[in-house]
């Protein structure tokens, strides 16, 4: 059996009295496009920060490519690429200088870093303003640059925290194409996003975190089957028809699965009658 690309056991993070992430056991197989979902404040960013070394875990362990992150942090960091929440950009460098810098921080030689910088800038359509400082880039351009920096060393695992937030449709298409190409070449991608349509289209496997606890994990089909089985059981138990069930042959969307798992529902009962 393959060593999981990412595995956590009892991962917990406390901020004083608040338990942001509690006893999370994750397993991501190599080559998976893994979506990590959860409502606001569920613990997604805290988890991804712990997995990438930006935050220390209060307890539990993290293995990346079979290596313990706490004991082999440098070796693990060499194998992973990260687009964190804040994008980790240096505002007063140009895009080319930044990519060159990141490449060399990951141990690339000058020539390779320069060559990959040129290719990435071209691919991400960032080569048009070579003198512009990163601080003057639009949000979408900064996102593309952060992603370019995360892949410049050819990581085996890529961690992306909300990579499509504030990115236009064209840039989003470019990013998706690149990510799918990486998956085709055997890389593992761990992604958090609020855009469920994108996650549904890209990710083969998912995990859902809610109030700091992992409440579901598996392939999209497994999650769907689980939710449908639960709904069916509830129907049988309550002898009710209609609500909660799906029509025969109709598949639940990821949004529906997500809402049923985290127990969210739109409040249609409370109407804002004064709205036009």
């Amino acid at each position: 059996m393959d060593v999981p690309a990412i595995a956590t056991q009892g991962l917990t993070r406390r901020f004083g009295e608040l338990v942001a992430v509690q006893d999370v056991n994750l397993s991501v197989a190599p080559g998976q496009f893994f979506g990590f979902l959860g409502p606001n404040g569920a613990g997604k960013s805290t988890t991804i920060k712990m997995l990438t070394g930006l935050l220390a875990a209060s307890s539990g362990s993290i293995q990346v490519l079979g290596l313990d992150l706490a004991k082999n942090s440098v070796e693990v960091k060499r194998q992973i690429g990260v687009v964190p929440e804040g994008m980790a950009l240096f505002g007063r460098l140009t895009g080319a200088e930044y990519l060159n810098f990141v490449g060399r921080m990951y141990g690339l030689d000058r020539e390779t870093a320069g060559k990959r910088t040129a290719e990435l800038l071209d691919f991400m359509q960032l080569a048009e303003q070579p003198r512009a400082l990163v601080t003057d880039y639009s949000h979408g351009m900064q996102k593309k640059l952060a992603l370019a920096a995360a892949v410049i060393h050819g990581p085996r695992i890529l961690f992306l925290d909300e990579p499509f937030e504030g990115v236009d449709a064209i840039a989003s298409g470019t990013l998706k194409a690149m990510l799918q190409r990486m998956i085709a070449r055997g890389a593992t991608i761990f992604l958090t996003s609020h855009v469920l349509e994108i996650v549904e289209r890209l990710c083969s496997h998912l995990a859902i975190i809610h109030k700091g606890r992992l409440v579901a994990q598996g392939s999209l089909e497994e999650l769907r089957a689980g939710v449908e089985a639960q709904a069916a059981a509830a129907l049988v138990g309550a002898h009710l028809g209609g609500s909660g069930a799906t029509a025969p042959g109709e598949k639940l969307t990821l949004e529906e699965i997500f809402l049923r798992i985290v127990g969210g529902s739109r409040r249609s009962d409370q109407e804002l009658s004064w709205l036009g």
Partner: protein
Amino acid sequence: MAGLILSPGMRGQFAAIARVRWQLFINRVRTIRGRLEVVARGLMFLGFAAAGLGGSITLGGLAWLFVSRGRLPWLAILLWFVFLFWQLFPVMATAFGETVDSSSLLRFPLSFPSYFLVRLAYGALEPSTFMGSIWLFGFAVGIGIADSRYFLWAAIVLLTFAIFNILLARMIFAWVERWLAQRRTREILGVVFFIFIICFQFIGPLVSRIGRSGHPEVPRIATQLLPYERALPPGLAAAAISLAVQGAFAPALGAFALECIYALAVLWLLSVRLRAQYHGENLGEAVARSTAPKEKRAIRLGWKVSGIPGPVAAILEKEFHYLSRSGPMLFTFVMPVVILLIFRLGPQTSAKQGNFLAHASDLAFPIGAAYALLILTNLVYNCFGADAVGMQLFFVSPVSFREILLGKNLAHALVLACEIVAVWIAVCFMFHPPGVDVTFATVTGVAFALLLNLTAGNLLSIYTPKKIDYGALGKQRASTTTVLASLGIQAAVFGLAAVTLLVARAFGRVWIAAVIFLILAGLASIGYVLVLNRADRIALDRRDTILAELCRA
């Protein structure tokens, strides 16, 4: 102006704005820090009130003196003083802080007159307005006491002058705000401000020189400038009052009319600026997509520094890019040479009259070098401050903090080395070449002080980082803890240096100081290596705090 009559809707909006500002104030005092700030502001208000009252009494007294003694042309000097304070103080006090984003108001359905009034009211209660108004009131009272017939006229003229000042201050602020909204213009303004500050330093020495030489050109130039002074608002306000006192009512009315025209012109300029804001001018900083055909530019490879590992060289290069793109930083680095120049330009007749370097020029190089080191501590003690969110990269990349700090320290040491060379050359030209023993003792002393500062700086950069922006002036200080610790280290360094120099002097050999400094540098280097080797563990243990401080918006 019909739109300026407050409709019930406008009154409601003003009430809402006043209420939200009050609520913001109340929310602020909920925290201890907020309460301390309110107390500090209260103390500042008392200071301003005292200065306002004192100035008012002084100006009133002088106005009374000038009118009663018939020295009417002197009134203009007082009004020029009020004018300069009123206009310069708010720019100096607020120009380099964060400004109110007008777009936060524009999202509401505010009419232009409402917007105009709100913008006029924002900041109209600044200390300069408060103090300037009290001063002018005292001025009018002084004239009234000297001759009560002219009190009303003086009050009208001075009220117009006050309105002109308020409008002009708001107009200048509106333009400054526009320039501060964009990084490039903000940095240009920063550089202009810095040049202004540097030029200001030269006023004392130059005035002293001109005064001593009894320059015959000065009175002639002053006489030539007088007609221009009389054509400007402070001169016009003074003329309107003094001409009336002399019985020349028609010319007084003319001067007053011109003053009113100035006020209207400023009002118009202010409305032009505010109208542009109101119509949603685009001050976005995002680079525009180029429409020109794509030009393939070769990517410049990173620096190759022999004997230094790639990541350390990359950090070194990044630090130099950051420093070279910071106008304020570059200007800071020329300050040691500027200080030497100021000393050089000062009067040189007597050792008791300030310019001691003219008589102890051997000290010029050590003083210049020490000043260069002091300036550098600003960088050394908060070396991650400018990295902001980029700090995340240091934590996710496979590079140890030992290497990261080494790269940064190397950059700072190279900057200091360049400055020391520049200071040495400047001393050679301005005074005389320092002796070999003095040069060697200074360089070893700086090496010791640098190593000690880098050791402490590395620790404090990890323990108490503070986000700063190299591109901006003001509010760029390190944390209070860092500042205090830095002061302690400097005191220790200067204390040790003083003892070393005393020992060398007792033996009559400067070389002894160099040897002692070398030994001290050796000891400091042990501490430096120890800290460097533990930097990774300390940084990882404190990563939550570091990232929370540096990555905040």
